[in-house]
């Protein structure tokens, strides 16, 4: 009881965070019909800056990191991405009036990773003074790519089986490439490489790091406005998508917390790292996942997966998930 109360207090306190304020503020002003626009060029650049910062820091940390400590979390990330898709297949896809393709595309998106949620989680941990291994955010692709691939492969196989034809062999490598070539993942991976190989300390400390929190606030505003703008797409599709989008981030997140906890016990994964793994699992891809899925499962209706992800999944992951996992960590560790 007491711990539940402590958890609730923690969650409420998080609601005063500026990060969340910008997200909710974005929804509110969009609902009020503002003409304010953050230009697309600025949005794209912010995403680049955040992921480059994440990559650079990850790369510099990995230089001195104990690689053995990274094995369990990395495997957990892959497992979480795959499990999220399978969970979608046995829940969402079985609901009345839901097409399997649409369900798999949606589950793929929720298994994949959102850079904005990840960055918001990092900022929240920093504000709460909870340290974590600098390479944790770099687990992003370990969860993102497997989720997208599994969703596309399953959809292709099931579609073939349904039409009675022999399933055409799905070529996985083009999907991996397509996924890694996305702007966000490229920035992350390039940052990782530069952090590992070159000496970017000066530019990181003078530019990417100090601007991180501020750029994140602008990104939150954009995500909030976008969440509201996409609501109408959600209204076109079955309400089960909204229900799924409400629960999937929390379920995926708690699974992430659980696997992270095992890594904590086994190889000393830090509490902050556990929280961040949960946040990554809880997040759903809002930037580069959709086109990969649209190309890979062309028969799926984008209104279903994008509305659910952008309008409900991301706000739930940020506004509920992050404070919940931080609160849980304070209770558990």
């Amino acid at each position, binding site marked *: 009881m007491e711990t539940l109360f402590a958890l609730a207090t923690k969650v409420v306190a998080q609601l005063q965070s500026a990060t969340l304020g910008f997200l909710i503020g974005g929804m509110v002003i969009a609902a009020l019909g503002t003409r304010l626009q953050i230009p697309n060029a600025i949005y794209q650049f912010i995403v680049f800056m955040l992921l480059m910062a994440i990559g650079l820091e990850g790369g510099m940390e990995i230089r001195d990191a104990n690689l053995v400590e990274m094995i369990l979390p990395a495997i957990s990330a892959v497992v979480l991405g795959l499990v999220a898709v399978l969970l979608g297949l046995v829940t969402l896809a079985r609901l009345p009036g839901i097409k399997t393709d649409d369900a798999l595309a949606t589950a793929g998106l929720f298994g994949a990773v959102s850079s904005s949620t990840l960055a918001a989680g990092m900022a929240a941990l920093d504000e709460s003074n909870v340290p974590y291994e600098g390479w944790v955010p770099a687990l992003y692709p370990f969860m993102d790519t497997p989720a997208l691939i599994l969703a596309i492969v399953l959809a292709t196989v099931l579609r073939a089986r349904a039409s009675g034809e022999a399933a055409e062999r799905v070529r996985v490598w083009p999907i991996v490439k397509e996924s890694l070539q996305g702007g966000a993942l490229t920035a992350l991976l390039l940052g990782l490489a530069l952090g590992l190989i070159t000496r970017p300390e000066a530019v990181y400390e003078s530019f990417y790091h100090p601007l991180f929190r501020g750029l994140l606030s602008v990104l939150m505003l954009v*995500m909030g406005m976008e969440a509201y703008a996409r609501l109408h797409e959600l209204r076109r599709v079955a309400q089960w998508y909204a229900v799924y989008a409400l629960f999937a981030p929390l379920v995926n997140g708690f699974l992430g917390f659980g696997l992270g906890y095992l890594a904590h016990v086994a190889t000393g994964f830090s509490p902050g790292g556990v929280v961040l793994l949960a946040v990554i699992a809880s997040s759903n891809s809002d930037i580069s996942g959709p086109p990969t899925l649209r190309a890979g499962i062309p028969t799926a209706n984008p*209104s279903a997966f994008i509305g659910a992800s952008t309008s409900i999944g991301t706000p739930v992951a940020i506004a509920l998930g992050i404070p919940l996992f931080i609160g849980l960590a304070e209770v558990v560790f």
Partner: protein
Amino acid sequence: MFYDVKKVVIITEKLIRDGVLKIVEAAGATGYTVHETGGKGSRGIRSEERPHVVEAFFNVQVDVIATEAVARQIAEEVAATYFTNYSGITYVQDVEILRPAKFEHHT
């Protein structure tokens, strides 16, 4: 001297731009012009102004000047290949050009 040829216009999702351009080039067109646009059709509004939070989810318009046969073939092939799963429209117009050799396939 002006010569009669056709212009075929394709308005569709940015995502499949490269696929459309492959059809255009394979059909024997000598060039194309691409515009970024927004619009509304049977599948809802796409805007070129709002941040494209979802990468590549807005419209492109591809204009191709070509001989009548090539133009019609492009329109039909694009529609047959893509317009079941992707949103898009295509249309053909008359145009008069000055240098017909410029728009004929060099084989």
